[in-house]
């Protein structure tokens, strides 16, 4: 063995370490790949050895090779081996490699669960830290589910280093296992107020990430964050919180109002640019949310714009960039304030920095008007010519189109100009946006009737010079414009001047090199063109010319019939036959033009893109209902044997079926989907073509050859948009002159009448600009009674949607985190009768639920104000109704608010009210230098003579604690539930061990007979403490106090039921009064709810009715009234002893307030 060790270390001396590997690679520059493959072979040898140091070294080298692009997933198992090394040095190497190369598809990852769990509970904080860091990179849904509880425990670790890592990783756990969010959230919230700033910052970080995706669920945290914002000095935390508020304000305008002032102060006071910038950003978000009806915030807008202008003018390009970015946000709601800085924006358009130019482009969108559109676009066009990178050029292109087409082309006065701009844009080499240009051409030509003639002439020119557009590169998107050109020329062929020439152009052999879908459009439109030529010729009585055209068609169409593209082929074949038929008729001198034209009669109208979706479903049509019941193979299989054999098993199977139903349905649904996916005839829902285009990975990265032409491509006959600038100016000038003339005339007339106001005389407003053509922009058609739903933009695959979870709802049974340890506990504790585990389970689940439930209750208290306020608004609306109804209400003996106004002070303090101090239901049981025990007792309504005691054991020493056993001295009334076969003197083992600094929770069941009196039980915890010096037996005595409160279970009660209960009259009554209370009523109630398991039935001003129920079914009703510095509690209960004991306990609690 020793020899082997020595041999191992000698071997190691000859092995390459990471440095040697790097050096080697640097020395083999010319045959690097070969050298590395040699190294990989060596590494494979090293991995086969038993020595963990050798393995770790090999894995370390692999991590380096991974960075160079080598796949190292083949070594996944070895990596896990190194991860499980006992030495930190190796463990760290293993986890690093895992974090670099493990992912959800790594099959061995499931082997790591136990190793990670072990490392998480390791006594060394760095082992735990390394495991957390590694896990954060490769956590899978399975790992998240299995380890969620362990990580949650670590959130309360004694070391802040571990706490902050555990808090951060929870976000990843939530993402992979959304069910964990609700159980873990209370603790996460607690961490917002952790004493360690690092932990606090981590918690803020996680909640900000969560809230960013689903802000509405986190509104209730606003007061807490508000407090943090005003108290924290950490800029990182401040920035995160301020960003979070930016996400919350759109949902809650009142929050925004509160924020404006502190944020403005911060803007004035802070020296940190990053903070200033985020403040400005959030103020903008607030202003946007307030934009309607809040004119007195113009000062804030001015402040923001001013500060941003300073940023933009700064010499630091980063600030300039961010300034423009924020400016574009203001633009959306307050365009006027931004337009004042047009000079600045235009100046930035010439900046040498592309990022800044792009941002300036964004702003330009809001700067255009009828007046300056032509000028701005001209400037952009010159940039297009100069631009080097395709990204920037493409961006320019889309921006030009965006700017021009915005708001239904409202800024365009001259569509001839616009068409020529579009045509000019087709000269762009290598742009990806051919389809955009094409879409614009089509849109304009269809919707602006007046421009069709011009458009058609331009398009025919484009078709004529198609070789220029399509020649160089077929793969570039610009040939898409031919699609539009062909369609426009075909559809509006009546406007063509030289239809024959265009027909020739569309039938050139070169066309067959175009993409299939464009050819298809060519073929279809050739016929339209043909039809119109026929008509022309026949009208002109030139049958020979008509026959010539037909001959041309017959000659040229076969080239399309041979196309590899199905669509083209099919259309061409049909049309060829049609034309041949026409030819025959023509030969017999039959006039055919009428009939051929009839093929394309009628006009195509533009349809809104969403029209199809908005067609309302007719009444009585259920799209989800089966037309025929689906044949289900599984059912028939089940039924057949049943009819023949009536044995036990079958019956059981049948009974089980309804349970599995849900699952079965899901499975079937999946199977159906699968089938549909494989069925070529099933029309799948697919993303829109445009989107798909973007989604294809790598499309953008096809290197586009840049052709450097010294002479700009100018196609003869193509319009130059520049000439329109001049024309436009002239036109406007003319218009102005004419107008002036008219005015003069008018003025002459007016002179006799009232004197005209000044000012309006020579300013030319936008509206004065008359368009060059009579433009009739056809709106897109929508179906009749279209549904006004706008929810069609949500992406169903959004991973964050799963985290859209209501955090204020109480936890349900099914929601607890899977806990491996507790499962062990159950089996070890209860090997008694068969039904005992079931009992225990039942007790435990509601216990956990109730605990959480109460914590939720507390949250609700804070949040409740929000809800109440909104209900108050409702109340006001229905005030009249209410007054009518108030008579009925008096019957029910309940106190109603005296008036809405009176309730006001309680309700509008959403942010001012002091938050509750953190409360814990766990109280100290006993403590010594080794261990600290805290406990909580929970009852359940299902079990009338049982309670569960949860004991949290925290190891306070540096020893390892094991063999823990808990025992109590049973009383006649209360007994500890022990495993079967053990005597009353045996203890119950605690199902876990405790490394130093770790705490964990154990649960014990007690049976109880009478619950009307409180009780105390003596007990002992014995354990073995093991440290470096050896192990010792230790014990700790305690007294377990079963208060009457612990037999109560928080049960909600409706006010009607509550009133009936009080009226029934079989309750005994008692009351107490406590003086000297300074706590707010709100918090007081929260305390009673939390510590005494009550729920508020109704609250009016400083008076509240509360309800709770004992595990044995006693009803307990309270009326709590707050006076000056005192509180009185009147109680009614079906058992008078219980009531008086409860009130005594409550008195003790209240006295502490």
């Amino acid at each position, binding site marked *: 063995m020793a020899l082997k060790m020595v041999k191992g*270390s000698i071997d190691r001396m000859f092995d390459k370490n*990471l440095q040697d590997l*790097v*050096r080697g690679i*640097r020395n083999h520059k010319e045959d690097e790949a070969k050298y590395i493959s040699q190294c990989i072979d060596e590494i494979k040898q090293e991995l086969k050895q038993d020595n963990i140091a050798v393995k770790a070294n090999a894995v370390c080298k692999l*991590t*380096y090779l*991974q*960075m160079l*692009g*080598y*796949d190292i997933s083949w070594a996944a198992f070895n990596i896990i081996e190194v991860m499980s090394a006992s*030495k930190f*040095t190796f463990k*760290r*190497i293993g986890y*690093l490699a895992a974090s670099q190369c493990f992912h*959800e598809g790594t099959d061995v990852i499931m082997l790591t669960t136990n190793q990670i769990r072990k490392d998480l509970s390791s006594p*060394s904080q*760095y082992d735990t830290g390394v495991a*957390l*860091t590694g896990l*954060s990179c490769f*956590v899978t849904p399975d790992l998240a589910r299995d380890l969620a509880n362990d990580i949650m425990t670590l959130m309360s670790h004694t070391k802040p*280093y571990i706490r*902050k*890592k555990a808090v*951060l*990783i929870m*976000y990843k756990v939530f993402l992979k296992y959304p069910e964990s969010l609700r159980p873990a959230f209370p603790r996460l919230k607690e961490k917002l107020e952790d004493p360690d700033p*690092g932990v606090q*910052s*981590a918690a803020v*970080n*996680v909640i*900000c*990430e969560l809230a*960013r995706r689903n802000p509405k669920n986190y509104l209730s945290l606003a007061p807490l964050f508000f407090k943090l914002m005003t108290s924290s000095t950490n*800029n*990182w935390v401040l*920035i995160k919180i301020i*960003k979070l508020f930016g996400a919350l304000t759109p949902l809650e305008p009142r929050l925004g109002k509160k924020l404006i002032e502190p944020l403005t102060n911060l803007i004035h006071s802070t020296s940190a*640019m*990053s903070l200033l*910038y*985020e403040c400005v950003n959030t103020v903008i978000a607030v202003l946007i949310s307030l934009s309607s009806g809040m004119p007195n915030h113009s000062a804030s807008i001015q402040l923001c714009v001013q500060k941003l202008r300073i940023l933009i003018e700064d010499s630091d*390009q*980063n600030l300039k*960039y*961010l300034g423009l970015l924020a400016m574009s946000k203001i633009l959306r709601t307050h365009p006027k304030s931004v337009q004042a800085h047009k000079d600045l924006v235009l100046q930035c358009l010439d900046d*040498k*920095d*592309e*990022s*800044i130019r*792009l941002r300036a482009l964004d702003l330009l969108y809001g700067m255009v008007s009828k007046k300056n559109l032509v000028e701005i676009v001209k400037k952009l066009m010159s940039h297009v010519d100069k631009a080097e*990178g395709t*990204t920037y050029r493409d961006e320019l292109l889309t921006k030009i189109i965006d700017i021009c087409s915005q708001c239904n082309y409202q800024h365009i006065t001259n569509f001839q100009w616009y068409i020529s701009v579009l045509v000019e844009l087709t000269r762009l080499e290598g742009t990806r946006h051919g389809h955009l240009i094409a879409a614009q051409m089509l849109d304009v030509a269809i919707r602006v009737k007046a421009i069709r003639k011009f458009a058609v002439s331009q398009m025919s020119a484009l078709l004529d010079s198609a070789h220029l557009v399509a020649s160089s590169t077929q793969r570039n998107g610009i040939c898409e414009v031919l699609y539009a050109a062909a369609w426009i020329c075909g559809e509006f062929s009546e406007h063509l001047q030289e239809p024959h020439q265009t027909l020739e152009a569309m039938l050139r052999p070169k066309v067959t090199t175009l993409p299939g879908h464009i050819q298809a459009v060519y073929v279809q439109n050739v016929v339209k063109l043909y039809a119109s030529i026929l008509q022309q010729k026949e009208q002109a009585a030139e049958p020979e010319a008509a026959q010539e055209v037909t001959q041309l068609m017959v000659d040229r169409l076969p080239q399309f019939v041979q196309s590899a593209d199905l669509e083209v082929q099919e259309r061409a074949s049909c049309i060829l036959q049609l034309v041949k038929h026409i030819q025959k008729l023509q030969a017999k001198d039959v006039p055919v033009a009428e009939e051929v034209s009839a093929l394309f009669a009628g006009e195509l109208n533009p349809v809104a893109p969403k029209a199809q979706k908005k067609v309302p479903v007719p009444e009585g049509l259920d799209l989800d209902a089966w037309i025929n019941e689906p044949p289900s193979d599984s059912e028939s299989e089940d039924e057949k044997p049943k009819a023949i054999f009536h044995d036990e098993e079958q019956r059981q199977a049948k009974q089980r079926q309804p349970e599995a139903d849900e699952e079965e349905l899901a499975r079937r649904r999946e199977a159906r989907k699968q089938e549909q996916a494989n069925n070529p005839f099933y029309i799948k829902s697919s993303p829109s073509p445009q989107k798909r285009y973007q989604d294809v*990975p790598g499309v953008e*990265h096809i290197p586009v050859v840049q052709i450097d032409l010294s002479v700009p491509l100018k196609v003869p006959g193509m319009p130059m948009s520049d000439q329109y600038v001049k024309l436009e100016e002239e036109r406007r000038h003319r218009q102005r002159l004419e107008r002036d003339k008219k005015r003069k005339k008018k003025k002459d007339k007016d002179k006799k009448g009232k004197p005209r106001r000044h000012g309006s005389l020579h300013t030319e407003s936008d509206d004065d600009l008359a368009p060059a053509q009579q433009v009739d922009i056809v709106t897109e058609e929508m179906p009749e009674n279209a549904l006004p739903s706008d929810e069609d933009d949500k992406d169903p695959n959004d991973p964050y949607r799963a985290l859209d979870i209501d955090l204020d709802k109480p936890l349900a049974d099914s929601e607890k985190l899977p806990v491996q340890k507790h499962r062990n506990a159950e089996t070890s504790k209860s090997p008694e009768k068969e039904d005992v585990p079931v009992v225990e389970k039942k007790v435990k689940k509601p216990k956990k639920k109730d605990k959480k439930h109460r914590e939720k209750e507390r949250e609700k208290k804070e949040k409740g104000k929000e809800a109440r306020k909104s209900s108050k608004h409702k109340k006001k609306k229905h005030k009249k109704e209410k007054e009518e109804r108030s008579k009925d209400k008096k019957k029910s003996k309940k106190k109603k608010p005296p008036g809405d106004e009176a309730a006001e002070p309680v309700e509008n303090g959403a942010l001012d009210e002091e938050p509750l101090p953190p409360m814990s239901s766990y109280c100290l049981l006993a403590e010594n230098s080794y261990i600290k025990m805290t406990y909580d007792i929970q009852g359940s309504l299902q079990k009338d003579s049982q309670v569960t005691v949860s004991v949290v054991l925290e190891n306070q020493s540096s020893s390892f604690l094991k063999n823990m056993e808990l025992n109590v001295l049973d009383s006649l009334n209360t007994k500890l539930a022990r495993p079967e076969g053990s005597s009353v003197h045996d203890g119950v083992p605690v199902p876990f061990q405790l490394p130093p600094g770790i705490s964990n929770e154990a649960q014990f069941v007690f049976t109880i007979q009478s619950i009307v009196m409180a009780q105390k039980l003596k007990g002992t915890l014995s354990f073995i403490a093991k440290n470096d010096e050896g192990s010792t037996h230790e014990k700790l005595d305690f007294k377990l106090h079963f208060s009457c409160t612990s037999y109560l279970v928080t049960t909600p009660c409706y006010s009607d039921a509550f009133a009936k209960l009080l009226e029934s009259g079989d309750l005994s009554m008692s009351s107490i009064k406590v003086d000297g209370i300074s706590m707010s009523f709100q918090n007081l109630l929260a305390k009673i709810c939390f510590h005494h398991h009550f729920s508020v039935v109704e609250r009016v001003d400083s008076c509240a009715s509360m309800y709770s129920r004992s595990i044995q079914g006693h009803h307990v009703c309270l009326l709590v009234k707050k006076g000056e510095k005192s509180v009185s509690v009147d109680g009614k209960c079906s058992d008078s002893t219980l009531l008086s004991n409860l009130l005594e306990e409550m008195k003790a609690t209240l006295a502490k307030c």
Partner: protein
Amino acid sequence: MIQAILVFNNHGKPRLVRFYQRFPEEIQQQIVRETFHLVLKRDDNICNFLEGGSLIGGSDYKLIYRHYATLYFVFCVDSSESELGILDLIQVFVETLDKCFENVCELDLIFHMDKVHYILQEVVMGGMVLETNMNEIVAQIEAQNRLEKSESPQL
């Protein structure tokens, strides 16, 4: 969230590649190359933010980088991170490297990629900022180095 952290030199050689979202190795290399070409074109006196890292994320993502002597430090982040904050974070990371390696230079990163990773792990965890206080980061690194030293065989 931070999507990726890349460090490469003026010739595009990767020195540290840390993705917080799974990409196959060849795509990772492609992203590094693409990012390198994007930042290479940029002068030192223009802004440190960059859109158009089209391989990662989408419009929500930005590249934020700093150029030190022979090395580029590039962070790819989404809109939940403050741009200026991340610039500061890069500075913190580099200063930490400087402290841990005592006058860091490219060679340190070349030969001690593993250590650079360990340092980064104390700054960013799973794509989220873990610690921004340099003293705290350095203290944790040193404690771990001590632990490592105590484990290595005394020869």
